[in-house]
């Protein structure tokens, strides 16, 4: 599965099915500081994602 990180870096992981929550936890990301899209659609953290999904992690908290 392809994961696009908040800094636009790309990570490919071989772990499916997995919940979005597990993926964020493995990456040390607080779910309250990001929103997640799967294949362009917003999803909650208890979504189960599959090997062919593209997950984008978008950081929402920053100053300005």
């Amino acid at each position, binding site marked *: 599965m392809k994961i696009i990180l908040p800094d636009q870096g790309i990570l490919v992981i071989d772990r499916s099915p997995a919940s979005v929550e597990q993926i964020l936890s493995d990456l040390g990301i607080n779910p*309250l500081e990001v929103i997640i899209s799967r294949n362009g*659609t*917003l*999803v909650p953290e*208890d979504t189960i994602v*599959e090997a062919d999904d593209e997950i984008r992690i*978008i950081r929402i908290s920053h*100053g*300005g």
Partner: protein
Amino acid sequence: MGGKKHPSGTPTCCCCPEPSVIYQQHSQRHLCSTHFIHDVEERVVQGIENNAMIRPNDRIAVALSGGKDSTALLLLLAHQLKRWRDVSLVAVTVDEGIEGYRNETIKAAGQVAEKVGVEHHIISFQDLFGDSLDILLKGREEQACTVCGILRKKALSEAAKKNGATRIATGHNLDDEAQSVLMNVLRGDLPRLVRDSAADTSDRFLPRIKPLAEIPEKEIASYLFIKGMFLLLPECPYTRFALRGDVRSMLSGLEHRNPGTMLRLMESKKTIGKYLAGSSVSDPLRRCRQCGDPCSGDSCQVCRLRQSLGR
């Protein structure tokens, strides 16, 4: 969390068979995009009405930085405007003069104002105070957020008054408000902790309203994403000097491990305010000797700051 899963692997909405886009911790519900948008808009409208934030014939200056919170605020107020009799909006953007940051957000602000058909005005530190923030901060960058906060508030008030506004609406969300409570506690600033900027309806202040103050930041970002209006914008280069950054990380960690922390902080603020009602925790309001603006000492913060900056 949990709940019935849609074939897509996403839990279904609590109100219909569609896949959900968010799990709301505070309501313990999964919601699809349609029901989520409706829920956010109704909560904001309820908050406005319960707190009498908008009155007939108001002209509301929406502080529009171009970031996500103010964009969501303008979208929401513009869409719901027909609910209030003879109320109009004007969007106001403050250009502090921050190289590599502000130009992009000002462009975004202009685009959103145009999209919703709201008049848009820009006021700059350069015009009002004689220099950009970058220049004013030379050698005192660690004071950036204090200096910027004081001058931005003044700029916003000036622009609002100039455009005939009766109120100023800002996009502060629940996370911002909870962070401010904690920051005021950490600074030991009791007067600021209990101050209510919307409470004074005399002619001394233009009342400020915060229609998004009960909406978590994550819901604001989700709202904009669904509306196709979420933009990745640059971060303010002075953020690294701010206490708020540390408080934000700490508080969102606490909220994640102990859901409801932010709401309880807001409740604490209200409780302290109730106990202190009628007592004087700050000096009585006077007029600044230099500019005549309301203040608690001989001079207002802006005049004191201008003096220290040699302006």
